[in-house]
């Protein structure tokens, strides 16, 4: 079976800036894939190359086995892209936009049932006849997603689809996208909500400065790069010196210790007992993608300040 998406040594330069630096990536059909990385890592650039909005400086990309340059028509037929920017056409209403979008791909009235399904799935049914200009920001985002799906593409790429949408829509959106995934659509998603990627994506690539720095199943990444944490509340007592090497953060008597192995809990407790420190509270915290993310891309970049990390 052909891979849904393939990148071969893709480079992209904007003048001096190397936005992508040799990306190799294969995403098999049916996968729910996450593309993560700090601002400016090159996620959108990679997606835009796939969509034909940008030309690679070097390298090739394909969708369902169709090269995005030499066989662009077949490639774009198979691809639905939700752009990151919230764009809309102020002249038309939601249903008209969806009909147009399907029409560009050669689909006509026979596609209307599918359009209704999208409207329903994204909670847009009662906005179908509302002009795009009059939709709220979150509603515009839904319409943008709907437009990408209008021609029922087997491969769907969503570039931060949940930026600026409320919790309710996020749930609704993910239910709908998960359903599409179960029906066989390949899904690629970029998001700054790491928790989202963790629960949805079976595999994740982390990008940093135009390169993929980690690529694995979500479970493996969690095991490999993020051990469990031990959260201790010690009141006024200081942390015993032997434990300082494990310290991740600590203030006001609340300390977070990184565990590379579970047996370290034993060690921590015995050190505390030796130092005669009273434990007020103690908690074992499961790792999350945030930790993986921080250990891979956090150190060298201050630009990930604006990552939104849900807790």
């Amino acid at each position, binding site marked *: 079976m052909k891979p849904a998406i393939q990148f071969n040594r893709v480079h992209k330069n904007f003048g001096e800036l190397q936005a992508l630096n040799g990306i190799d990536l294969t995403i098999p059909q049916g996968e729910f894939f996450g593309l993560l990385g700090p601002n400016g890592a090159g996620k959108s650039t990679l997606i835009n190359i796939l969509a034909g909005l940008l030309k690679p400086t070097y390298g090739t990309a394909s969708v369902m086995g169709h090269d995005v340059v030499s066989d662009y028509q077949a490639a774009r037929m198979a691809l639905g892209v939700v752009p990151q920017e919230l764009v809309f056409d102020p002249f038309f209403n939601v249903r008209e936009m969806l009909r147009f979008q399907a029409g560009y791909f050669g689909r006509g009235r026979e596609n209307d049932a599918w359009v209704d399904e999208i409207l329903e799935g994204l909670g847009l049914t009662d906005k179908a006849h509302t002009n795009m200009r009059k939709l709220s920001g979150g509603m515009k985002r839904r319409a943008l997603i709907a*437009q990408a799906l209008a021609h029922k593409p087997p491969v769907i790429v969503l570039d931060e689809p949940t930026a600026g949408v409320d919790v309710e829509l996020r749930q609704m959106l993910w239910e709908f996208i998960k359903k599409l995934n179960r029906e066989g659509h390949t899904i690629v998603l970029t998001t700054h909500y790491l928790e989202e990627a963790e629960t949805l994506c079976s595999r994740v690539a982390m990008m940093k400065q135009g390169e993929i720095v980690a690529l694995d199943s979500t479970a493996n990444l969690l095991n490999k790069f993020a051990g469990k944490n031990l959260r201790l509340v010690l009141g006024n007592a200081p942390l015993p010196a032997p434990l300082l090497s494990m310290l991740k953060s600590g203030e006001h008597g609340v300390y977070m210790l990184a565990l590379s192995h579970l047996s370290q809990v034993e060690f921590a407790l015995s050190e505390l007992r030796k130092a005669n420190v009273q434990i007020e509270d103690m908690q074992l915290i499961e790792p999350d993608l945030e930790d993986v993310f921080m250990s891979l891309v956090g150190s060298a970049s201050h630009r990930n300040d604006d990552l939104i990390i849900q807790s």
Partner: protein
Amino acid sequence: MSLMNQKWRGTYTLFKKEVLRFWRVAFQTVASPVLTALLYLLIFSHVLASHVQVYENVPYTAFLIPGLIMMSLLQNAFANSSSSLIQSKVMGNIVFILLTPLSYLQFYMALLAAAMIRGLFVGFVIYLVALFFVDLPIVHVGWILTFAVLGSALLGTFGIIAGIWADKFDQMAAFQNFVIMPLTFLSGVFYSIHSLPPFWQVVSKFNPFFYMIDGFRFGFFGKGDVSPWLSLVVVIGFLLGLAWVCLKMLKSGYKLRG
């Protein structure tokens, strides 16, 4: 569904969207240019009718109307494709088109056809309204249609080029004011170029707008400043040249695909 069918439907959809885009705001895109043309007609014919006689047996008001029709037709064909492109570039919604399998040729055909429809429609409405004011002969309907179609195609193409080139609305306005307007006013809409000093006669002969208007007017009166065949050759030449430039730009993805 066959590939041919699918392509046809894609092109037709884009064409339809482009037509609806101006039709939804017809007050601004059709009614307003018609009104402008009528104001020109009223003022110029009133002021100049007793002073100017361009062709024998042709009253100035009648002489003026084909020029005004063609001027509006050309300006509106240009306005349609150029403003559609610049708007969707500035708004960013051009990605909806760029993400589709539509080829550059389909894109060109759809935008061009919509621009021609608007130009021709505005021209036709002005013609109908003008009939209330003057008797306008039609000597060669074939020439009239030929130059109307070629003129709208030429300016529709020019509009696409300008729309791709411009990044901002003020660049587009500059294009309108420094290229389109002078070319229109120095083309013989309001006068025969034979009434100009020799220098400006020569200059006018390098202006493609002159040939479009002169050939178009020939269809009404059977008279013109130059032979309609010469105009035809010049206009087709310019159209092919501009279409070639436009398709080159679209094919390379200039300013549309980085």
